[in-house]
C-alpha cells in the first residue's frame, strides 16, 4: 500500500502522458525531417522523470542529461517553449541556440539538459552547495544514466557531496543501454546503488517503471537532504524504447526488447494499479486527453514562430 494521495497520483499519470506525447510527436516530426540536429528520447522512462520531479518542490533544482525532455517537462517547463526549441524557433527556451540537449527553465529549477555525459552531477552538487551556503532549504537532483555512472565526474561529484554533506540526490536512470552498448559494457556490478556504500550515504534500487515507487524513494531522499543528512543515490531500472538517438537502427538490442516495447510500459503499469490509487478510467482518459491537447498546442506554437534573427548569434556570449 502506498501513502500518496489521489491528486499526486493523478499528477504522476498526467505528467507521464505529457512526456509520452511530447516524445512521440518529437519522434514523428524528426522522422519527417522537421527537427534539425540530434534528439534523444526518453519513451519508456516517463516514470523516472515524473516520479522524481513530482517529489520535489518548486524551489528545488534538477540538472539533466542529453535525454532530458521528460525531466524538464516534469519539473514544470513549458512544452510549447520546449517544442519551439526543438523546431529551432526564436521563442525556444534557448532562443534556438541550444537545441534539444540544452533546454533549461532556471525559474522552474531546471538547470538544463546537458550534452556532456556525467556533468549533470557536479552541476547539481554546485546547486546543492549554494543551498547549503545560503541556507535556502533547496535540494538538487542530478539525473544520469548507467553510462555516466562510469565517468570520473560521477565519482568526484558523489565523493565531494558526501564529504560536504550536501542536499543532493543522485538519480541514476538505468535504461539498459548507454549509447549503443548494453549495461554490461559499462558496469561491473548488477546494481549501481551499491556504490553509495563507498561514499557512506544510502543507495537504493527501485523499479523505474513504477512511478509511485520512484516518487516515494525521491521524497524520502529529499526529506533526508533537507534535514541536513546529506546525499542519496537512487537507481531506477527502466528501459529505453527508442535508440540512443532518433534514427539509431538499434541492431544491438534483443528481439524481445525491440519488438515488444509495450512489455516495459510505465503508463500501462500505472493504469493497472490506478484503482488502488483512487483513480478511475475517466480520470486517466481526461489526463491523457489534456496532455495530448497541450502537446498539440505546443506544436502549433512552435510552427507559428520564426527562426532566430541572424544578429542573435552574437547575443549572450558574455553577460554585459
Amino acid at each position: 500500500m502506498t501513502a500518496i494521495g489521489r491528486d499526486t497520483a493523478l499528477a504522476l499519470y498526467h505528467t507521464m502522458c505529457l512526456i509520452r506525447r511530447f516524445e512521440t510527436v518529437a519522434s514523428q516530426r524528426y522522422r519527417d525531417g522537421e527537427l534539425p540536429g540530434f534528439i534523444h528520447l526518453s519513451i519508456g522512462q516517463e516514470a523516472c522523470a515524473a516520479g522524481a520531479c513530482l517529489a520535489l518542490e518548486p524551489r528545488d533544482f534538477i540538472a539533466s542529461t542529453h535525454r532530458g525532455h521528460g525531466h524538464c517537462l516534469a519539473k514544470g517547463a513549458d512544452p510549447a517553449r520546449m517544442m519551439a526549441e526543438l523546431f529551432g524557433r526564436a521563442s525556444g527556451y534557448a532562443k534556438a541556440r541550444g537545441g534539444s540537449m540544452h533546454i533549461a527553465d532556471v525559474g522552474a529549477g531546471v538547470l538544463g539538459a546537458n550534452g556532456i555525459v556525467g556533468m549533470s552531477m557536479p552541476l547539481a552538487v554546485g546547486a546543492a552547495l549554494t543551498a547549503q551556503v545560503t541556507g535556502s532549504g533547496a535540494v538538487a537532483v542530478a539525473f544520469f544514466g548507467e553510462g555516466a555512472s562510469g565517468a570520473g565526474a560521477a565519482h568526484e561529484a558523489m565523493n565531494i557531496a558526501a564529504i560536504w554533506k550536501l542536499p543532493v540526490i543522485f538519480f541514476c536512470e538505468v535504461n539498459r543501454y548507454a549509447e549503443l552498448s548494453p549495461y554490461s559494457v559499462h558496469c561491473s556490478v548488477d546494481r549501481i546503488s551499491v556504490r553509495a556504500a563507498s561514499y557512506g550515504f544510502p543507495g537504493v534500487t527501485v523499479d523505474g517503471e513504477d512511478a509511485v515507487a520512484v516518487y516515494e524513494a525521491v521524497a524520502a531522499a529529499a526529506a533526508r537532504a533537507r534535514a541536513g543528512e546529506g546525499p542519496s543515490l537512487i537507481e531506477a531500472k527502466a528501459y529505453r524504447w527508442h535508440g540512443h538517438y532518433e534514427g539509431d537502427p538499434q541492431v544491438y538490442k534483443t528481439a524481445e526488447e525491440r519488438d515488444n516495447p509495450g512489455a516495459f510500459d510505465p503508463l500501462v503499469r500505472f493504469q493497472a494499479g490506478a484503482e488502488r490509487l483512487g483513480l478511475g478510467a475517466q480520470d486517466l482518459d481526461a489526463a491523457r486527453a489534456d496532455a495530448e491537447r497541450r502537446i498539440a498546442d505546443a506544436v502549433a506554437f512552435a510552427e507559428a514562430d520564426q527562426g532566430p534573427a541572424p544578429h542573435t548569434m552574437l547575443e549572450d556570449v558574455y553577460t554585459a
Partner: protein
Amino acid sequence: MKKIKYYQALTRALGEEMERDPSVILIGEDVGASGGIFAQTRGLHAAFGPLRVRDTPIAENGFVGAAVGAAMTGLRPVVEIGFEDFLTCCMDPLVNQAAKLRYMLGGQVSVPLTLYTFGGGGVNAGPQHSQSLAAWFAHVPGLKVVMPATPADVLGLTKAAIRDDNPVLVLLGKKLIGTSGEAPDDGEDHVVPIGKAAVLGEGSDVTLVAFSQMVPVAVKAAGALAERGVSADLIDPRTASPLDLDTILASVRKTGRLAVVHEAQGPCGLGSEVVAQVTEAAFSALKCPPIRITPPFAPSPFAPSLEKAYLPSVERVAEEVSTLAAA
C-alpha cells in the same frame, strides 16, 4: 602606497571581496586551514569560516563543475587550481559548461566564476608544472582571461574578476609569487578593469608586448635596449581575452615595429594572435615583419641549465628587439 608581495595581493583581494559580498566563497585544494601551498589563502578560513572557505578533494573536474553549478544558482565562487597545468583536469566544466551555459541556455543564467591558478616556468618544476596555457582559454568565447604581472594588478584584476558576471581565469605567475611591488593602501578599493593594457614604458623605435612573467624580463630588456640607444614602447596587455588591441595598435602606428614575448610556445599562441590582429588592422604602419620571442616548440625542461636556455631571457629579448629596431 606601500610595498606588498604578489601572493599577499591575492590574499588581500580575496579577503576584501569576501568581506564585501557574502555570496563569494573560496574552494580548492588546501585553501582552508592550511593557508595554501604558497600561503596565499592564509587567514581566510579563520576569518570567513568553513562554510565559505573549503578544502576540496583532489578532483578538479568535480569541484570546478560544482563551482559552475553554484555560480548558476546565486553564489560567486572563487576556485583555486594550484598549478595552471592542472587546468587540463577541468577542461569540461570550463570550456563546455562555464563558457557556454549562458549562450546555450538562451541567456537564462550568468556564471560569475573566478578561477585563479599559478602558471609559468622558471622554478625548475618540469614539464607538468611549468606551463602557460592562456592561449587555450583565450580561444574560447564566453571566458575572460587575465594575467597580472604585478602585485597591484593581482589585487585589482582579481577583484575585478570576482565582481565580473562572467567566468574569469586569473592566470598568475608562480615565479612572481615572492616579488614585491607598490600597491594601494589597505582600505583602498583598487579594481583594475579587465581588458585594459598597461603601458609600462614609452619609446619610439619599437613596440614590445610582454605577457605575465615576461613583463619583468621585458622591463629589464627595455633598460638594456635604452643603453644601446633603442627606445621601446613597453606594453603589458594584462588581459589575454578580451585583448586590448587599441593600445597595441596605437603604439605600433607610432613605432612601426612589433615584438611579442611570452612564456608559452609560439605556434597558435598569444603572440600569433597579437601579430595577426596588428597585421590585419595596421599593415601599412609596419616597417618590417613583426617577431615573436617565445620558447622553442618543446615541453618545459626540468634541468636548470635547460630551462634557462628554454625561457626567453633578458639578453635574448634585448638582442632580438635590437635587431628588429635596425630592420
